């Protein structure tokens, strides 16, 4: 990252210079949400200060400007993930809403009694519960791919679950608990050979890996802005146009209609058919700056910095006696779930917080996975672009001291 030295990147994030409990903040909770650069924060306040207006329906100058900025985000995202058209980019509140949109819409026309859906043991609750809900209402069967003790998907088991009733597979690209990078290319290929709809939960992948939905060839790809340096309350569903065309709307209301009368309503074109009501305009505009930020540095540069950080952290953690890393897949990103022999993760979280270190403790919204590993929770460190080896050293030092108590 020669053009963007780490020092400069850290300066872009105002929060990173704050003190927490009299220590410099060390932010290792990036899988929950990343911090936001100044450009994102400023663009949101700039929208409210200078061109706040409702979009699409207005003809006045402010409405034009807001609409243009909003739609620019859509184009930028289309390019960022390599979609074919902005019709394939639907704004939501986040990954969770995206998965609910897909599941409830497909439940209305595609998924019928007796059909089968496949997910995996490492899914986030938001990629489990929506499918369970439609499985209950539509009498579908939910099947679950096994995960190995290292935290890897068992591909053979996946293949064995496929029958001629399998209609959909929904899988996480990168596990928020284990850090595992799943072989989604392979899975999607198998899906398309069997005419199975593929849904990829990209919540953890979009800020850390180059994404191209065309080369992945998935039918759906879902993600949240707040995990990629953007604001909360914005997410995206990418869907292939030919499937989205056939799908019924998720919610009814303004914006998603062409004509409304009491006898018949006709729906708007894509992507607006799926965007009922006034969207989160300010934050969508802020999201544009987050994408620009990532693109300015270059996702390849981000990836290589994060890989070296991951290796550094992995080595340091492995050198600590009495610590067990949960999730040791060969192909993983800088997410480390761990437990220690003598300190409960809950105590650990508080004690590290007292030293200014923010990490997450608990089940990370993956209770079935925790059950699988016979745990009720872990502490989790998750890295991002602005983290440094010094921070990892400080964390490891603090951890060792706490464990010696």
């Amino acid at each position, binding site marked *: 990252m020669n053009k963007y030295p780490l020092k400069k990147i850290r300066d872009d994030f105002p929060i990173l210079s704050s003190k927490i*409990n009299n220590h410099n903040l060390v932010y290792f909770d990036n899988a929950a949400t990343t911090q936001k650069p100044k450009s994102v924060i400023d663009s949101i306040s700039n929208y409210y200060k200078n061109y706040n207006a409702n979009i699409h329906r207005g003809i006045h100058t402010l409405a034009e400007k807001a609409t243009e900025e909003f739609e620019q985000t859509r184009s930028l995202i289309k390019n960022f993930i390599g979609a074919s058209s902005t019709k394939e980019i639907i704004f939501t509140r986040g990954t969770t809403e995206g998965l609910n949109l897909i599941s409830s819409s497909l439940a209305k026309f595609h998924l019928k009694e007796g059909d089968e859906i496949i997910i995996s043991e490492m899914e986030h609750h938001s990629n489990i519960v929506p499918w369970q809900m439609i499985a209950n209402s539509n009498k579908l069967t939910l099947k679950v791919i096994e995960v190995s003790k290292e935290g890897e998907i068992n591909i053979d088991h996946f293949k064995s679950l496929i029958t001629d009733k399998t209609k959909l597979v929904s899988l996480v690209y990168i596990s928020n608990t284990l850090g595992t990078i799943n072989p989604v290319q392979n899975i999607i290929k198998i899906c398309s050979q069997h005419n199975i709809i593929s849904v990829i939960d990209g919540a953890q992948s979009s800020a850390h890996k180059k994404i191209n939905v065309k080369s992945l060839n998935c039918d759906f790809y879902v993600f949240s802005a707040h995990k990629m340096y953007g604001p909360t309350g914005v997410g995206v569903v990418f869907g292939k146009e030919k499937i989205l065309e056939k799908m019924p709307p998720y919610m009814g209301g303004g914006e998603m209609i062409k004509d409304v009368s009491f006898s018949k309503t006709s729906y708007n074109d894509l992507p607006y058919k799926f965007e009922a009501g006034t969207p989160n305009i300010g934050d969508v505009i802020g999201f544009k700056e987050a994408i620009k930020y990532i693109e300015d540095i270059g996702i390849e540069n981000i990836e290589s910095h994060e890989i070296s950080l991951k290796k550094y952290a992995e080595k340091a953690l492995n050198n600590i006696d009495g610590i067990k890393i949960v999730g040791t897949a060969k192909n993983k990103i800088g997410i480390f779930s761990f437990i220690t022999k003598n*300190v*409960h993760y*809950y*105590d650990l979280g*508080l*004690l590290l917080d*007292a*030293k200014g270190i923010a990490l997450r403790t*608990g089940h990370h919204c993956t209770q079935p996975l925790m059950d699988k590993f016979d745990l009720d929770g872990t502490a989790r460190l998750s890295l991002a672009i602005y983290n440094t080896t010094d921070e990892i050293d400080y964390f490891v030092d603090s951890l060792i001291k706490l464990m010696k108590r």
Partner: protein
Amino acid sequence: MTTTQTQNDIVEDFKVLEEDFEMTLNYLMEIGEKMDDYDEELKSDDNLVKGCQSKVWLSHELKGGKIFFSGDSNTSITKGLLSLLIKIFSGQTPEDILNTKLYFINKTGLCRFIGTQRSNGLEAMENKFKIIALSNK
């Protein structure tokens, strides 16, 4: 000793910690460690306090109209908090327990460290003491 006296004592004890987060946590862990051993058999679902991130068990005995509590937790910091609540409520009548307002949290600076999501556990613990008191009235 009334619950007010015990709370005042706790507030006094915490003064040396100068509202330092780390020292407070260490102190809580220390007092937790000093608690009497809790019978493994008492770690039943009935005695489990629901709504805490960590596991907390609380049981009681009634002697001469007064309730005596014992308990345990699987995490050290929560165990320290629990030990404070036991110190306050143990040996009191059900009425006194029900009439007690816990103010020591605010006066010790503990509230600053035990933010909203963390205090859920504390609230759940307090409720359990009061439910036990109510059912023994």
